[in-house]
């Protein structure tokens, strides 16, 4: 597969603050890369370097194999970029703003209007096309930014927090749009909403303090969690000790935790040994001993937990 975005040891500091320490990554055609990290981790700075808005102190960014530093115009023409907060010229109408972008992107005459119409339609902006952008709601403003980024059907799409501040319907719409465009583009989406990564991204990169601390599919990240494939059951409190003892002797089970008790019920969680799948064993055990189970859940390990673990454990390591 063709590598469309390439960051090669990017580094950037602002005065004494080291924003991006060392980031290398490759994004191939068809990939949607989720760029995760706490605020101030260097997500936006990395994106600004990839899009040529900032010059890296060291390292190189390439878009479709074209060096952003050496041939900026060419690289930028292959790129659609939605900056954080979706800035746009507020005194223009959505349509005239997109006309301007289309002209700069090199479209003329009928071709220009066709591209603008398609962009307006894809982002659902037709009804507000003649309104000034500054009078639009946050969601519509975001869509104007999105329309601007996809107008020339770029091979590479870089979006800085595209769903930030949108309502659930709008978020859903933006995610649909991303998924729809994914197959013939390389897309980078920064976010700190983890459900978004699960929803749209084929791959997630977690960065913290200007370094990549994890890189893999959302699934692979989840696997890093101890709770991944853990089985939680809810039973009557009186049975707790017996069941806990029985679970503990199962071959795949590492430990059994008591999670919470309420209304005479208790929740137990059996954590598997690494790589083991214990759901079937637990199920069989419960059947054999004829224990009444209120609820049985196989946990996936929340991405939130992964995120917290990765980014805070590093913090501890640094302070140590």
């Amino acid at each position, binding site marked *: 597969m063709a590598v469309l975005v390439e960051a090669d040891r990017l580094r950037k500091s*602002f005065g004494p603050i080291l924003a991006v320490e060392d980031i290398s990554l490759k994004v191939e055609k068809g990939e949607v890369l989720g760029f995760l990290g706490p605020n101030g981790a260097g997500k936006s700075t990395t994106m*600004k370097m990839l*899009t*040529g*808005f*900032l*010059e890296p102190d060291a390292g190189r960014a390439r878009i479709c194999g074209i060096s952003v530093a050496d041939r*900026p*115009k*060419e690289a*930028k*023409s292959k*790129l659609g*970029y939605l*900056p*954080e*907060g979706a*800035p*746009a*010229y*507020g*005194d*223009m109408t959505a349509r*005239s703003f997109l006309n*301007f*972008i289309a*002209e*700069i*992107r*090199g479209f003329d005459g009928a071709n220009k209007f066709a591209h603008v119409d398609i962009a307006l339609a894809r982002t659902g902006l037709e009804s507000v096309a003649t309104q000034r952008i500054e009078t639009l709601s946050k969601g519509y403003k975001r869509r104007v930014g999105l329309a*601007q980024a996809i107008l020339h059907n770029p091979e590479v799409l870089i979006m800085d927090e595209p769903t930030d501040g949108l309502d659930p319907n709008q978020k859903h719409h933006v995610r649909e749009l991303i998924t729809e465009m994914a197959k013939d583009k390389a897309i980078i989406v920064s976010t700190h909403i983890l459900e978004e990564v699960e929803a749209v991204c084929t791959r997630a990169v977690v960065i913290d303090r200007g370094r990549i601390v994890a890189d893999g599919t959302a699934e692979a990240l989840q696997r890093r969690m101890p709770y991944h494939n853990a089985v939680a059951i809810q039973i009557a409190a009186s049975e707790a000790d017996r069941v806990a003892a029985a679970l503990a002797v199962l071959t795949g089970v590492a430990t059994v935790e008591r999670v919470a008790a309420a209304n005479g019920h208790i929740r137990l969680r059996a954590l598997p040994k690494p790589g083991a799948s214990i759901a079937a064993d637990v199920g069989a055990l419960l059947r054999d001993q004829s224990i009444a189970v209120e609820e049985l859940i196989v946990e996936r390990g929340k991405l939130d937990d992964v995120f917290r673990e990765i980014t805070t454990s590093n913090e501890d390591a640094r302070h140590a």
Partner: protein
Amino acid sequence: MRNIWIITKRELGAYFGTPLAYVFAVIFVALTGAFAFFIGNFFERGQADLQPFFNYHPWLYLLLVPAIAMRLWAEERKSGTIELLMTLPISTSEAIIGKFLAAWIFIGIALALTFPMWITVNILGKPDNGVILASYIGSFLMAGAFLAIGSCISALTKNQVIAFIVAATICFLMVMSGLELVLGFFRGWAPSFIVDAVASMSFLNHFELISRGVITLPSLFFYFSIIALFLFANVIVVEQRKAA
């Protein structure tokens, strides 16, 4: 060239899409007229020329041009649209020249709207219209030089008030550099060629020459090189911000 024109077109649209253009044009025309009639004694002089009208242009520009220029880059930076603009497939100099040209054309339009002055003086007497044309050209060039300075300063800050004050101060010094106020400061210690050099930087001296109808190559060269110099500095400032 195509990109420059697209930027210029958008910027011009932005001027006329907001009250800015109308407020500026009305104030400019009203003030130039008021100065000519009330302070320049347009009627009392009894001469059919526009001297009293053009004499006050440098002082008006001092106030009004930095007001136009301050928003050129400071506003883009403040609103974040600079990130959009600079990630479009255009070069920094195209963006700078495009924005500069739009502002210059806009001031040109405001200047052209003072044509009733020209009609008035032609009704009242027989002025030398060649001199008047030369004065208009001189005034327009001077506005361009002010604007280039203001544009460059505007790129240094995201605060428009700072941009305005700094640009107005620099323009003020450039205007005054032919006068004793500034020259006296240098005369005490600097060799005479430096004093002469400072004096030759004066907007006022060049403008006076032109507005007497003498369009000389050095004066044209002076204004165009000021514009080129500050726009070049402008490119460096914007590029520098990328690396900072």
